[in-house]
Every structure is written in structure tokens, then in C-alpha cells.
């Protein structure tokens, strides 16, 4: 008879699992329904060692952790090592292994040994840990039945046992173990109860000596019969008036929308308020790093590459890390409360007329921080056409990389008028959302024809969110952002720096004349410090050389070549270079313009912002007229100026044709919008 291990409520210590660097010889797949606390349990077992990994060729991801599991008493005599190097694989939450869904397919393939997360060897797992919810035992037993039919060493963790006790539910673990033919551990991932016992049992799981039917109806009857034998206490529908009232409020057509707006406003306020400080610190740190590296490296290509390419590129990316981390942290907390599933239904009502479903809510919300995690979050959308529509629309949401450009242009448009600046800023966000909805409507009536799939979602119980899980997820997402987006943007920044720095140009005659003039002033007053006038002439000569170098560089020539395309929008050569450089990352526009017009990329300096605002074209006319500024603002709201986003779109949508469609469509809309803005302002006399 299989052994049974139930723990006592006092057994709440954190399980002791050491980190391993050995080649894992024991692979354990963690399987279970959504909302059963599977990931919380996994995080408890793995801690900070867990990392997110993709399944190659799919859009599904798993969390993987290499750990050292203690040897069970049964094996201790035959293995003298301190523990068994193991890999834990947290599979996507699924309701059934047999559904025709991407998540179910991935789980089947992992259990068959034909698929493994990237970096792991595909093999049949040595053990299967099935996590089930003690408060919803009957439904959860179905996936246990499907699992034991796989004939893998299996152990069942009956999670949320503390919540079950509070509901008056009693589960006979010994009887359950007997019915299933495998070990059963009662536990609570939130309190830590039973986890030591679970860890001890993980390496000694045995193939169940019972079987279950294989057809759906048979499994349902099997689950019901076992449930009746092992569960006692509270059954049937209970009065839960608080949950009822909250559900009715949060999904109410008016109250639900108001709650949603209030919660999201709070979320964004928190993100923008609290991310500002670490962003300033990071900005300052990279500024100092640039100065320090600039001071110790001799002038030359290596100096320029390090300061203008590597440090500026990495700094420009890392500066957005606080916002990304805060967004994921807040979303994880919100998800932990159980609210997000309700919000999805509120948004479903608003999005459905435009051909999207409430499943698009989290991806579109995340896209307001950065379209990359937003597009990746679209993986959770079950319907392919719904998912594609969401991916194509996501980059229209105003991401944080657009903010520096919005700030620059609204400041130029409305100097000293904060109220009008704020209105223009808000208009940018509204315009992005409106363009996204219109795009979805258009695509769902043409290339992605069909109604979006109606929603059926489990609504998790309202809970106090688990802070530790939220922090672990945030850490993990932050690392993913740094590794993927950072390296990608770094590479692009280096390429752009190279294009902008070569070929070198000789100083112009005008700058040589200015320097000669400055030298004569300096020599005429040898005992004193160079006068302000001399310094000003040197600065002017530097700016002329920088502008000349930029004009004759490969990027500059590219700008001159493309300028006729952007001429109807009011952009000169320098603005064209700024727009083209933005393909690396939108925020690059500000520093590119700063370099071009002032010969300096210190955009934090007010005088530099002022010099951009007062910049002139090659013919001496103002660069940023109201018409040009509006045109640029509209263009940046609507354009797909982000190469990393296109790469992620191609990957997540399943081909470059979707990325090209996104680029083509957004460019067309942006061009048309900017043209209309430019010509309209000119027509109404805005110059």
C-alpha cells in the first residue's frame, strides 16, 4: 500500500533545498489546474533560483529551477551523495491534458519526453508532481486521473489545505492515497505547511499502482466516486455574500468601469510616481559612468564606442527597468487579489465591438509600459485570431519610451503652459488607444475575419496577494527584460553609433576659421583664463564639426536620402535622421536630436533641451515650428518605431509577415496622421 504523508499545521518551516550546479539527474514536472497555487508552491520550492524559459517552437513558457533535493529514506542506503541534483519544471496551468489547446499540447509533449524548456534536455520526467486544490477537489481529481494514466512516478500535493480547513472541508489523505495508488501530501504553499514532507518525498515517487479511465466521462465519474470516499464536511453551494457583492460591483456596467478606472489610475500613478526616483538614480549613475570611462579612455574610436555606443545604449534601456519591474509587481499583486479576472470581463464589454476580447486586457495594459512584455502576455489568449489582433494592436499603446519624445514636443508646443502640456500629453494616450481599436476593427473584418471567442474564465477567490511570489516574478521579469531587450538594444545602439560616427569628416572651413579666431583671443590674453567669447567660439566650432560629421556620416547620408519622403510632413534632414535613429528605440530621438543640434547628448541639461527647441535647419529657418511639432507628435504616437518590438511580434505571431504588416500599417497610419496634422496647422495659419 502506498504511503501517505499528511503534515501538521505546526510544520510551517521553509523547505531546505540547496542550489545545484551538477547535471540534473532527476527531472520533476509540476502539473495542475490554473488557480491552484501551483506557481506559489513552485516558488516556495525553488525560490530565487527559478528562471523563466520558453519551450522551443511554441509561445508557452515554463519556470525552471535547478535544485538539490534531499534523498529519501528509501534511497539513502544506496546513494551516499548529499542530495540529488534535480530540475523542477513548472508547466503551464491546464484544466485537462487532453484539450486541443497550446498549453495542453506542451504539457503532453513534456510528459512524453519530446519537449523540454530551452536549455534543458528533452526526456521523460523522472517524476510528476500534481498540484491540486483542496477546496475544489472533485474537479482537480480529473487531471490527477489523466496524470496517473501516464504511468510516471507520481506524487500528489493537495494544496490550500488551510483554506479547506477554514471551509470545514476534511480530506482523508490515507484514503485518497489508497484510491490513487500514489503518495499524497497535504500542504499549503502560502503558509509552508507540509512542504518539508513534500520535498522529502519528491525523489521517491513511485509509479501509481492504480489506474483511471481514459475517456472524459469515465474520468468524471471516477473523480466523483473518489471525491465521495475521501472528502467530508462542507459540500454544495454556500452563501458567500461578500464575494457576491464584490463580483456584482466589479463586473457592473457602470460601477465596474468606474472601479476599473480608479484602480488603473492608482496603478499608473504608483508606477510613474515611484519609478521616477530609481530612474533618476540610474540616469545619474550612467552619466557618471560615461564621464568616468570618457576620462580614462584616450580620445578615439574605442572611447566613442564605449561612451556613445555601449554606455549610452545600455543606459537608455536600463533606465526603463524600474517602470517595467513596478508594472509587473503591481500586476502580480493585483492578480493575486483575484481582481484581474473580473476586470477582464469589464474590458471584454468595451473591446468586443472592436473585435477583441477581455483576454486582451492584460497585454494592452502592459503595453503602456512596453509593447514587448505586452505582446508576450498575449500568449495567454486562447483564440489565435484574437491573439494576432492583440499583438498587432499592442504597439499603438503609448509605451514609456515615447514619454521623453512627448515631453520634448509638448514642451516645445506649449512653453510655460503646464495645463496645455498635460492635455496634449493625455491626447497622445487617447489617440494611441483609438488607433488601436480602429486597427482591430479593420483587421477583424478583413484578414482576421470572425467573431472573437466569448470568454469563459474561472474567477479566483478574493485573497490577500502573496508578496513573495510577486517579488520573485518581478525579479524574474526584470532579468528577462535586461537580458533580452537590453542585449538587443545594445547591439542596435552599437550599429547606430557606427553608422552615425563613420566615415569621419574633416573640419569645415567655417569651424577652422572660428577656432583660429578663438585662438587669437586666447593668445591676446595669455595670463588669463580663456574668455567667455573664446569659449563660445570653440563651442560653436565643435557644434559645426559635429553637425558636419553627422551630415556626412552613413546615417546622415541615409537621412539626406530619405528626407524627400518626410518632406511633406515638414521634416528636414536632421529630423529625418532623428526619426530613422528611433527605429532602435523611440527615446533615441531626443538624444539624436541633441547630438545633431548641439554636439552634445546631455539631454538632462535644460540648455540642451532649449537648444533643440531653438534649433535651425540648414537654411537657418526654425526646425520646430508648430506644424512640424504637431506632425512629429502624431507621428510618434502612431508609428511603429521600435525594432525590438517587431522582432518580438515576428516571434510571437509566428512569422515575419505579421511584423511587416504591423510595420507597414502603423507607418501608413502614422504618415497619414502626421501629414494631416502638418497640413492642417499650416492651413489654419500655424506656420
Amino acid at each position, binding site marked *: 500500500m502506498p504511503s501517505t504523508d499528511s503534515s501538521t499545521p505546526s510544520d510551517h518551516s521553509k523547505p531546505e533545498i540547496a542550489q545545484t550546479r551538477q547535471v540534473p539527474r532527476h527531472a520533476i514536472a509540476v502539473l495542475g489546474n490554473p*488557480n491552484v497555487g501551483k506557481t506559489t508552491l513552485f516558488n516556495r520550492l525553488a525560490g530565487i533560483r527559478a528562471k523563466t524559459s520558453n519551450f522551443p517552437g511554441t509561445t508557452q513558457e515554463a519556470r525552471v529551477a535547478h535544485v538539490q533535493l534531499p534523498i529519501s529514506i528509501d534511497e539513502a542506503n544506496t546513494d551516499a551523495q548529499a542530495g540529488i541534483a534535480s530540475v523542477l519544471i513548472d508547466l503551464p496551468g491546464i*484544466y*485537462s491534458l*487532453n*484539450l*486541443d*489547446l497550446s498549453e495542453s499540447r506542451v504539457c503532453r509533449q513534456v510528459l512524453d519526453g519530446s519537449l523540454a524548456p530551452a536549455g534543458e534536455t528533452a526526456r521523460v520526467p523522472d517524476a510528476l508532481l500534481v498540484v491540486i486544490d483542496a*477546496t*475544489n*477537489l*472533485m*474537479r482537480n481529481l*480529473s487531471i490527477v486521473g489523466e496524470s496517473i494514466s501516464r504511468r510516471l512516478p507520481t506524487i500528489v500535493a493537495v494544496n490550500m489545505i488551510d483554506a479547506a480547513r477554514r471551509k470545514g472541508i476534511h480530506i482523508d489523505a490515507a484514503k485518497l492515497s489508497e*484510491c*490513487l*495508488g500514489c503518495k499524497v501530501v497535504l500542504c499549503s504553499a502560502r503558509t509552508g505547511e507540509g512542504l518539508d514532507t513534500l520535498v522529502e518525498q519528491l525523489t521517491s515517487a513511485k509509479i501509481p*499502482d*492504480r*489506474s*483511471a*479511465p481514459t475517456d*472524459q*466521462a*469515465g474520468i*468524471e*465519474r*471516477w473523480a466523483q*466516486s*473518489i471525491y465521495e*470516499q475521501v472528502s467530508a464536511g*462542507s*459540500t*454544495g*453551494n*454556500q452563501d*458567500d455574500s461578500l*464575494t*457576491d457583492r464584490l*463580483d*456584482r460591483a466589479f*463586473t457592473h456596467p457602470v460601477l465596474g468601469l468606474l472601479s476599473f478606472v480608479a484602480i488603473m489610475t492608482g496603478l499608473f500613478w504608483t508606477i510613474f510616481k515611484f519609478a521616477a526616483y530609481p530612474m533618476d538614480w540610474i540616469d545619474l549613475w550612467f552619466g557618471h559612468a560615461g564621464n568616468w570611462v570618457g576620462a580614462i579612455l584616450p580620445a578615439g574610436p574605442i572611447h566613442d564606442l564605449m561612451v556613445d555606443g555601449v554606455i549610452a545604449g545600455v543606459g537608455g534601456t536600463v533606465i526603463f527597468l524600474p517602470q517595467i519591474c513596478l508594472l509587473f509587481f503591481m500586476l502580480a499583486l493585483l492578480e493575486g487579489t483575484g481582481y484581474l*479576472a*473580473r476586470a477582464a*470581463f469589464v474590458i*471584454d*464589454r468595451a473591446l468586443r465591438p472592436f473585435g477583441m476580447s477581455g483576454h486582451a486586457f492584460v497585454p494592452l495594459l502592459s503595453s503602456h509600459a512596453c509593447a514587448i512584455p505586452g505582446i508576450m502576455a498575449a500568449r495567454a489568449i486562447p483564440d489565435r485570431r484574437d491573439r494576432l489582433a492583440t499583438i498587432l494592436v499592442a504597439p499603438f499603446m503609448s509605451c514609456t519610451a515615447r514619454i521623453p519624445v512627448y515631453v520634448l514636443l509638448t514642451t516645445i508646443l506649449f512653453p510655460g503652459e503646464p495645463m496645455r502640456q498635460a492635455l496634449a500629453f493625455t491626447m497622445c494616450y487617447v489617440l494611441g488607444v483609438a488607433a488601436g481599436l480602429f486597427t482591430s476593427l479593420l483587421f477583424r473584418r478583413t484578414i482576421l475575419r470572425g467573431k472573437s471567442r*466569448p*470568454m*469563459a*474564465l*474561472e*474567477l*479566483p*477567490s478574493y485573497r490577500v496577494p502573496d508578496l513573495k511570489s510577486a517579488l520573485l516574478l518581478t525579479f524574474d521579469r526584470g532579468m528577462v527584460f535586461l537580458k533580452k531587450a537590453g542585449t538587443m538594444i545594445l547591439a542596435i545602439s552599437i550599429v547606430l553609433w557606427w553608422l552615425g560616427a563613420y566615415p569621419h569628416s574633416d573640419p569645415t572651413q567655417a569651424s577652422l576659421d572660428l577656432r583660429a579666431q578663438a585662438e587669437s583671443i586666447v593668445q591676446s590674453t595669455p595670463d588669463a583664463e580663456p574668455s567667455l567669447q573664446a569659449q563660445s567660439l570653440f563651442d560653436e566650432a565643435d557644434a559645426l564639426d559635429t553637425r558636419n560629421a553627422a551630415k556626412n556620416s552613413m546615417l546622415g547620408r541615409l537621412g539626406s536620402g530619405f528626407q524627400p519622403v518626410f518632406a511633406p510632413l515638414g521634416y528636414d534632414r536632421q529630423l529625418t535622421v532623428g526619426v530613422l535613429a528611433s527605429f532602435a528605440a523611440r527615446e533615441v530621438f531626443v538624444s539624436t536630436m541633441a547630438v545633431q543640434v548641439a554636439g552634445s547628448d546631455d539631454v538632462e541639461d535644460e540648455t540642451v533641451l532649449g537648444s533643440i527647441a531653438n534649433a535651425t535647419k540648414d537654411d537657418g529657418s526654425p526646425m520646430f515650428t508648430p506644424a512640424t511639432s504637431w506632425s512629429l507628435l502624431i507621428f510618434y504616437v502612431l508609428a511603429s518605431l521600435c525594432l525590438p518590438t517587431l522582432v518580438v511580434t515576428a516571434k510571437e505571431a509566428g512569422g515575419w509577415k505579421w511584423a511587416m504588416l504591423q510595420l507597414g500599417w502603423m507607418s501608413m497610419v502614422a504618415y497619414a496622421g502626421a501629414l494631416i496634422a502638418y497640413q492642417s496647422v499650416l492651413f489654419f495659419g500655424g506656420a
Partner: protein
Amino acid sequence: MIEAPSISSQPAQPSTQIESKSIPMTQLMRGQTGRIDCTQAHPDECSMLRAMGLRPDASVQMCRLGEPCIVSLSGACRIGLAKDIASRVMVHIDD
């Protein structure tokens, strides 16, 4: 190998044992309970709903009517359904 205790050999418990007429879930009143008869939807959708626990003979209580329709499943979990789906889930009203 031992077969699980006398489950698979049991005859099915078809919903026809319940003699009352089935109605769409959306016609349940708030607070009213019923037992699921069948789901008139695409087979994939039916399989998904069954896996979520909305299987024949499962007890459901109507918590919220309209869009979305929220039901409590045997008091164990809550499921939100678009009205379009809920109207295709047929239930017998409990006495």
C-alpha cells in the same frame, strides 16, 4: 495493477435520470441552483467547459445574471461566462 475502486464499471449517470425539463443557464434566477444537463456548443468548447468543471450533473448556483454570467460550481469555485456561452449551457432546476 489494481483498477480504481469500482468506478469505471459503474453505469453512466446520464442527465436523463432527472426528469425535469432543461432550460438555458441564463434563465436561472439569482441564487437559484441547478444541475447541468448538456452544453450546446462546439465540441472543443464543450470539452473546455467540462474540464473547468461544468460537466453533466454538476451543481451550479447563479450568482450574477447578465454579461458576464457568474455561477458558483458546487460552492468550490466561481466561473464567469459570456452570456453567449451561458445561454448554450442547459440546466435542470433543483427542487
